[in-house]
């Protein structure tokens, strides 16, 4: 038996020390949690607050303006919360789509050779990034409430679109059962086009040449919804906003709360996305531009086929966190009175006093949104990542 191992006391053995340290940390965390749990039990018992999610089945008793699904104030709390989740989802999806488009556009303009255009884009980015989002939301909301006229004197910039204190009103197709089917057809058409394009790309990779997917894709995207619409009876009736009494009748109204929220979120997030896109494009080596120029590829094609695909690899990770930020920032809706999930949960919390449950619900919902977005973006990032050969 060598005396070597005996000479090392256990506190100098890194492995044993690490185990001891972790055990201590674990004990500390568990003790701390128990103390918190104990405090909560005493305090809740003292104030006679029942724990658990039983309150979700009670009658909510508050109204929600323009609910996306049928909802009345005598529905239970859980249904109000579902309305909130759908609203949050709606705002996040619309906001993210437009922020990505607008942000990329501004990012490209930041690099424009036109001095004035680049300077204007820069000014927009600097102003928007250096003012709190909440303040911007209040500002846009104030424009509706304080600056825009009442319904009777609504601004009419063009066509049948009206701007007033009650929001934006514009004409839409009158309600008809077929429109739901048309939406479904559009969705299916997108799925089909996606598969057609993948098949074309796959064939090109394997055989070196392939069919052009675009005619088939465009035909599906236009044809499928059109056929559905024609079979369903081809309704053409349009519901236009008409001034009647104190409000508009007909048309589609977007509330000032929703417009300010979505508009504010898009403007704010676009500024960050623009900077990321600019940095991404600049990160692509100048030689790539020169090489494609010498191959006789036009500038626009170079951008679309050579530069952007390479820039995407740098762009996607930070853009992912911007998408997540927009989703989380949509919770600021509570401050301007749009019924997103946080604001419904807040009302529920104030009415029932179930603070712990409601805060946990908010966290769970946003964690779900964050994790699913991260998973999707990681999958997409892997798809565009550089395949090293």
């Amino acid at each position, binding site marked *: 038996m060598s005396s070597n191992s005996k000479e090392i006391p256990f506190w100098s053995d890194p492995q044993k020390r*690490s185990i001891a*340290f*972790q055990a201590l*940390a*674990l004990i500390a*965390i568990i003790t701390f949690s128990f*103390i*918190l749990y104990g*405090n*909560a039990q*005493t*305090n*809740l018992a*003292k104030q006679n607050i029942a724990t658990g999610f039983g309150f979700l089945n009670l009658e909510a008793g508050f109204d929600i303006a323009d609910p996306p699904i049928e909802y009345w104030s005598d529905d239970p709390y859980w249904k109000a919360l579902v309305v909130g989740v759908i609203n949050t989802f709606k705002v996040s999806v619309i906001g993210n789509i437009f922020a990505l488009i607008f942000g990329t556009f501004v990012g490209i303009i930041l690099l424009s*050779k*036109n*001095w*004035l*255009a680049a300077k*204007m884009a820069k000014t927009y980015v*600097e*102003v928007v*990034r*250096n*003012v*709190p*989002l*909440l*303040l*911007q939301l*209040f*500002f846009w909301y*104030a*424009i509706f*409430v*304080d*600056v825009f006229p009442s319904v009777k004197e609504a601004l009419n910039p063009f066509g049948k679109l009206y701007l007033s204190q009650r929001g934006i009103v514009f004409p839409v197709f009158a309600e008809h059962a077929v429109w739901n089917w048309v939406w479904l057809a559009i969705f299916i058409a997108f799925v089909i086009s996606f598969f057609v394009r993948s098949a074309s790309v796959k064939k090109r990779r394997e055989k070196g040449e392939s069919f052009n997917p675009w005619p088939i894709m465009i035909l599906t995207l236009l044809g499928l919804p059109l056929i559905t619409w024609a079979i369903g009876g081809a309704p053409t009736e349009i519901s236009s906003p008409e001034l009647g009494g104190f409000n508009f009748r007909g048309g589609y109204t977007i509330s000032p709360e929703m417009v300010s929220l979505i508009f504010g979120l898009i403007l704010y997030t676009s500024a960050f996305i623009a900077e990321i896109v600019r940095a991404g494009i600049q990160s692509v080596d100048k030689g790539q531009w020169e090489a494609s120029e010498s191959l006789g590829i036009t500038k626009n094609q170079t951008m679309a086929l050579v530069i952007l695909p390479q820039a995407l690899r740098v762009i996607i990770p930070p853009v992912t966190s911007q998408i997540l930020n927009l989703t*989380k*920032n949509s*919770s*600021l809706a*509570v*401050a301007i009175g749009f019924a997103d999930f*946080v604001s419904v949960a*807040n009302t529920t*919390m104030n009415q029932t006093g179930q*603070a*712990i449950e*409601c*805060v946990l619900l*908010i*966290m769970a919902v*946003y*964690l779900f949104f*964050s*994790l699913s977005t991260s998973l999707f973006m990681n999958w997409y990032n892997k798809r565009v990542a550089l395949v090293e050969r």
Partner: protein
Amino acid sequence: MISVNSEKLGSWLKKNLFSTPLNSFISIILITVIFKVSVPFIQWLLVDSVWTGTAADCRQANGACLAFIREKATFILFGFYPREILWRPIVSVILFIGMIWYSKEPHRWNKRLLWRWLKLTLLIALLMKGGIFGFEAVEIEKWGGLPLTLMLSFIGILFSYPLGIFLALGRRSEMPIIKGFCVIYIELIRGVPLISLLFMASVMLPFFLPDGLILPKLIRAQVAIIIFMAAYMSEVIRGGLASIPKGQYEAADGLGLTYWQKMTLIILPQALKVVIPPTVNTMIGMFKDTSLVLIIALFDLLMTTKSALKDASWLGFSVEAYLFVAVIYFIFCFSMGKYSRRLEVEFNRGVRS
């Protein structure tokens, strides 16, 4: 001389605005848009605006009601703090800005600076609170406006930065329990909006405190902000730790340094320096995010503005008020951003030479 200048101007214009027909077209449209927007705006803000008078004077004019800002500026900047002792919040703001100015030189970044910040925080808290040395005591609920915003953000940074370092080290640690705890903490906090943490602080935390202990809402919100900021700081710092070449770790191990010696003497000084620009950007984000405390009814800069707007005799001047506060936020955030870019350039220069 003039001809040379105009020639230069001409070639500059041709190169930057009118290089192609399309470019000229875009430039002309943009110039028209700028005129259409900025001329009425300047007229509204400077020509037609009302500088003194009452709400009635403002309503008669077509311009901005700057009289409203003059009337409410003190409230917006300092909230409900007693008017007779307004010098105390003013001195606090000056101390804060002075300390930020003092901290911006890289050669002052050491442990002493951290202690100075801690001392300053205590001093400002005493100054605001009063109650000793013959100073009149002011309840914490009356604090508001710019001092509150500065306090929430810079005290938040002061505490979340070290916490972020520990979390980043923990996440890269080889001990599974420590690592697991740090990963869960960071991802959990980054996955939820700040509002949910503020709700937690305002309505949930009181349940978890021992019986009889009541913390003011401001302190609870400050804790929530520190918890939130630390998660984001740690991710920035983790990036810095990852950028240090493996040889540095191995060399430190080879010298027989302990873990803490290795980290504090070799790794952290390099890692923290690399990520200073993104750290400052995170700080800017946090400075803006402190405005969210108005949702739990704390009187930060934005909340004082909102309540100034509720004054029944001055209704309807929200655009002026929001622009005023936006300028204040902009000055702080823009100068921090400029500073971060300057550091980036300086450090890059250092790397190349």
